Structures are given as structure tokens and as C-alpha cells.
């Protein structure tokens, strides 16, 4: 990352400083973390656009942006967390937990939709806080701590749902007062014959806000700093614990947003919702140029990673390829995207010397 010079600027002296060397636009562009995923996305897009009829139609685009959007919202949050140097393996199952909570509050405990949504967000913030607090206090890898959260939530999802409803899903959300208005905000479609999903707008807004925070605010600098070297960051006065806990809370609350979206869309929530999706989010973030070691990455890249996953999912469907091979195709496409990404980054870093 490049940090903006701070403090009082010395009087301008026209002496060439090698740190301020003039770098060409092309080289600067190639050094962006998202350039690899952009290239990967373009290749995947072009491939399916040319080989299938439906992929390039507006309705087709609505299909794959729909798949990409809920993955994308989570990928952006997970990317921020990864830049901050941490993982959250409970991010996937959290979408199920929050969806179920909203469902149980409304269908079993008489809440109307909007208060239930507020409670759900508050609950997510609490779980995120607990995740972050445990990681900070125990100094255990977040991989382990959130794996524990993952299992706890997975078990709770099934156990609580079955104990209360007697089945494995919460249904009947469509009859709850406030469902209509909540749907209009979270899960409706727009642009009628093609039916684009509102979640796509949410995704774009969240990616834009995350990008602004990362590149234009002090909080963004802190995120890069704690992920790059937490000790160094602490020594220069960055509130490491607060930043990391805030990142965990952001991830959990984005999971709540996605859980609410899916719950409202399907008018029901299954107890197994979201299990295993956490890896899709992490993959999208990594394809988008986030380093597993932290301190590097971008929200736009993660969004492009999610877009690749969405395009591949629907593209494979349109192609009519034998679905026995689906995961193989998906794996190959993702591997190619990562390879392109890597190649570009190596070129770019080579150019730096």
C-alpha cells in the first residue's frame, strides 16, 4: 500500500526524490490488485458470451449478476477482513443463522418484519464482536476461533430450528406484517421483463463504500496497517484491537444482510443455509487479489472474483455441460483466474524494480 504523506509538508524544494518517481499510467494500472481478476472476468465473460445464446441477453445478465450479488456482498466484507489479516470461517453459516433468527422472530415469536430485522442485525454485530474479541484476547489464529463459531452456529441452526418448528426449515415469512415493505428494500427485482435483483444494487453500493473507506479514509489506512504488520501498526498508534473487532462485526453484519435477503426472497429459511459458502467468499476475495497473509487486496477485486463465480455458475448451466463435471469446470475456471491474476502481479512487481 502507499500511504499519503502526513504532517506538515516541508517547504517545496525542487529536488527529485526517488520515492516520488514518475510512474507511467500503464504500470500504475497493472500494479492494482484487481487487474488480474478484471482480466479473468473479461475472459470468462467473453467465453460464455460467445459460446451460449442466453448469456449475453439482459435476462441472462440478470441471472448471473443475481448469483454474483450475494456472494459479492460477502466477498467484499471478507476481503476487508483478509486485508486486515484475519479470516472468518463462520461467514457462510452466519447467513443461515441470521436468516433463521429473523424467521423465528417473525413466525414464532410474533415480531413484525422490521423490528425482527433490527434485532437480527444487532445479533450479528454481537456475534462479530465475540469473534473479534476472542481472536484479540486469545491471540489464537482467527482460522481456529471462527471454525469453532462455525460449528457452534451450524449446530445451533439445526438444533434450535428443529426444537422450535419441528421441521428443518422456517416457513411462512410471506404472511408476516411488514414482509412486503422489507422485500421492497432487500429482495425485490427491478427492470421488469429482465428482473434484475435489488441485491445487485446493494452489492455495488457496498463495494463502492468499501473502496472509498480503503483508499480515502484513515480507517482504510488502519486496515492495511493491521494486516501488513500488526505490531508496527500498534507502535505507530493504530488501535489494532478496535480495527480488527470492527472488521469482524462488519463481516457478520454483511452476513446478516445476505441472510435477510435470501430469507425474504425465498419466504423461508433452511437450517442448512450457507454452510460451505464461506470458502466461496474467500475464493472470490483471493481471485480478486487479496493476499492470504493480509495487508493487500481490494474490494473491487473481490467483487470481480464474485462476478467470476456467478458467471461460471450460470454460464455452465447455459452451456448445458454435463453437470457431473460442474465442480471440475468451476475449479478450472477459478484456477485460470488465479493464474492470470498471479501472472499479472508478477509482471507488475517485476516492473517495479
Amino acid at each position, binding site marked *: 500500500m502507499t500511504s499519503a504523506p502526513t504532517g506538515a509538508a516541508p517547504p517545496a524544494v525542487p529536488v527529485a526524490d526517488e520515492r516520488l518517481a514518475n510512474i507511467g499510467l500503464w504500470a500504475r494500472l497493472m500494479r492494482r490488485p484487481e487487474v488480474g481478476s478484471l482480466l479473468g472476468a473479461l475472459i470468462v465473460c467473453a467465453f460464455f458470451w460467445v459460446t451460449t445464446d442466453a448469456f449475453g441477453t439482459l435476462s441472462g445478465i440478470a441471472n448471473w449478476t443475481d448469483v454474483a450479488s450475494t456472494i459479492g456482498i460477502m466477498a467484499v466484507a471478507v476481503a476487508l477482513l483478509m486485508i486486515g489479516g484475519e479470516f472468518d470461517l463462520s461467514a457462510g453459516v452466519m447467513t443461515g443463522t441470521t436468516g433463521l433468527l429473523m424467521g423465528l422472530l417473525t413466525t414464532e415469536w410474533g415480531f413484525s418484519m422490521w423490528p425482527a430485522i433490527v434485532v437480527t442485525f444487532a445479533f450479528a454485530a454481537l456475534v462479530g464482536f465475540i469473534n473479534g474479541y476472542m481472536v484479540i484476547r486469545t491471540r489464537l489464529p482467527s482460522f481456529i476461533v471462527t471454525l469453532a463459531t462455525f460449528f457452534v452456529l451450524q449446530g445451533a441452526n439445526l438444533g434450535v430450528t428443529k426444537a422450535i418448528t419441528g421441521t428443518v426449515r422456517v416457513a411462512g415469512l410471506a404472511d408476516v406484517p411488514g414482509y412486503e415493505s422489507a422485500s421492497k428494500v432487500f429482495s425485490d427485482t427491478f427492470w421488469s421483463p429482465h428482473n434484475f435483483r435489488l441485491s445487485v444494487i446493494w452489492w455495488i453500493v457496498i463495494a463502492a463504500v468499501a473502496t472509498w473507506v480503503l483508499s480515502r479514509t484513515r480507517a482504510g489506512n488502519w486496515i492495511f496497517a493491521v494486516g501488513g504488520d500488526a505490531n508496527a501498526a500498534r507502535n505507530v498508534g493504530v488501535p489494532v484491537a478496535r480495527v480488527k473487532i470492527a472488521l469482524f462485526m462488519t463481516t457478520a453484519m454483511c452476513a446478516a444482510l445476505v441472510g435477510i435477503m435470501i430469507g425474504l426472497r425465498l419466504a423461508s429459511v433452511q437450517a442448512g*443455509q450457507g454452510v460451505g459458502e464461506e470458502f466461496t467468499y474467500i475464493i472470490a476475495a483471493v481471485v480478486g487479489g487479496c493476499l492470504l497473509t493480509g495487508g493487500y487486496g481490494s474490494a473491487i477485486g473481490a467483487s470481480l472474483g464474485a462476478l467470476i463465480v456467478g458467471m461460471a455458475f450460470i454460464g455452465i448451466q447455459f452451456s448445458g455441460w454435463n*453437470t457431473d463435471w460442474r465442480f471440475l469446470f468451476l475449479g478450472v475456471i477459478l484456477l485460470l483466474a488465479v493464474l492470470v491474476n498471479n501472472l499479472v502481479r508478477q509482471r507488475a512487481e517485476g516492473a517495479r524494480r
Partner: protein
Amino acid sequence: MRQLRLALTAVLMVLGLAAFAAACGGDDDSGGGGSGGTPATSDDVNLTQGQDTTIAVITHGEGDAFWAVAKKGAEDAGKQMGVTVKYSESANDPQKQAQLIDSAVTEKVDGIATSAPNPDAIRDSLKKATDAGIPIITLNSGAEDYQALGAITHVGQTETIAGEGAGKKFKDAGATKLLCVIHEQSNIGLNQRCDGAKKGFGGDVENLQVKGVNDIQTTLTEIQSKLQSDDSIDAVLTLNPDIAIAARDAIQGASSDAKLGTFDLSGDVVTAIQDGEIEFAVDQQQYLQGYLPVVFLTLYKSNANTVGGGQPVLTGPGFVTKDNAATVQKLAEAGTR
């Protein structure tokens, strides 16, 4: 220069991917590929009518032995009727299933056959399909909801009735405590089977949630430790053939003498029935659940026929026991039972 090499590499990768896709999609005899080359070789008058018909079959399966047979049924029907069948699975994720149905509507397919384990979740997507004039048939799960979903008919078996039949089998065999093994978290149909078994059995029934077909080893351990911790269990009912084999090994591992019955067949299960390790299998003949919807939808398109008369078309339950196992074995090994 560098950019040139980079661009070249990218182009090569795309070509590689394309070649790879062509190889995988084309070689496979299942005819799922969009090329439509397979039926063209026997392109006769009687086949041309269905030539540009595409049926989407969308299930909640995850590539296990059960759904492989249903898939084969759908593909065989596609070949015999001369129509293109696009089979896809959502791995029990209702959102993915809704999205797959949406994409089939976008493609303007001529018919959609879908399982409905969670009817609420796919209601909106199926509404879009009916609004677009695409006929629907539900299969496997959804016997109670197919009319509300706007489907012509449902092809499957009623879970509760099939469960009752299995429970009664154990009761007749003199068992007193039954363990019902559930292998998917979110499939309501499985719980209905266990509820049905409880009704038919009349005695003590306990449900056990296990990891599932993606992790057979853990599932085996879970069943085995349950049997070891409670030796009053003298009957085990599994709801999937892969799980049945795990349960057989678990019963042997726990030195239990519990009787084992299962839902659905595989080659291994039939062999185990012949060897007396499994008492019976409830057969819902899922080959028909893939095959018949494709036939019905094709007939609907070409001849405006509706099958079922407003009732579901039942494919089961039938029971496979030691008596008829030999016949079924040959067919199971060919992948159609």
C-alpha cells in the same frame, strides 16, 4: 513485449479451456452438451419433431448414487424422444435451485421438471416460468404442493406413505426400537419419512442426524457410536443407499444384531440384500422420476397431453427383498434401478 506475451498466454488459456470443454462435453455419451450431435446420427422423420425441444431438469441432488439414476432416466428419455435434456443439481441449496430455474426461463426452454423439497423457495421462480408459458412438472419431492406451484402433475412417491410401509416391515419382523438415520439437514421429505416410519412401526423410534453422503466415514462413525451407546436399538432405517452401506458397516463394527432397512437402491445395496445384510429396500424407482417428466413435457409440447388427471403419478413405494433382488441387481448395475 511483455504485454504481448501476456496477451498470448491469456489467449492460449482461453483456447485450452474451450478445447477442454469441448472434449468433456462432447465425449460424454449422456448427450447433455449443447451440440445436439448425438441424436443427429439417427435423424429420421419421427425424431425431427422434437429436434428443437429443450427440457430443463433441475433437482436438489448432489451427485450421489440416487440422483445419478434419476439423471440417467432423464437423459435416456431425452435420447428416446429426440429432445435436448439439460440436467442440473442445486446440491440442496434452495437459492441456487431458484437461480437455476430463473436461468432456464431466460433460455426459454420448452418445459421444466424440478424437485420441490422447499416449495416456498422456488414459488417465485416457477411463477415466472408459468407466466412465460413454460409448463412445469414436479418430481421426487413436492407431492403436497405441485398444484399450488402450477405444475401439470407430480412424479414421485408420497414420503409419509413410503415411511409407513418401511416402519410396518420392521414391526412385522418383531423389532422394538428403531433408529431412523437422517442424512440431509434441510430436506423436509426425510423427516416425513421418519414420521411415517414411526406411524407404521408403532414402537419406539429415534431420529439420528448424521453428516451425510459427502462424508461417509464420519457418518459411519456416528451411527456406530450410537449403536454402541444404546444396545436396545434392534432396527436401523436409512434413507439413502450410500448411507445404508455405511450403516451396514457400522452395525458390523458395533457387533450389533440390528436389522437394517433402507430407502432407495444401489448396486451395493442389492448385493447386501442378497447376502442377507440388509432386510429390504424401499424402492421409489427414481429412474422414472427422471424419465417420465421428460416424456410428459415432450408430449405436452408436441401433442398438448396432460398426464395424471390432477393427481400425482406415483413411482413407489415398491420393496426389494431377497426374493426379487437378483432381477433388480442386473438393472442396478446398469444404473437404471
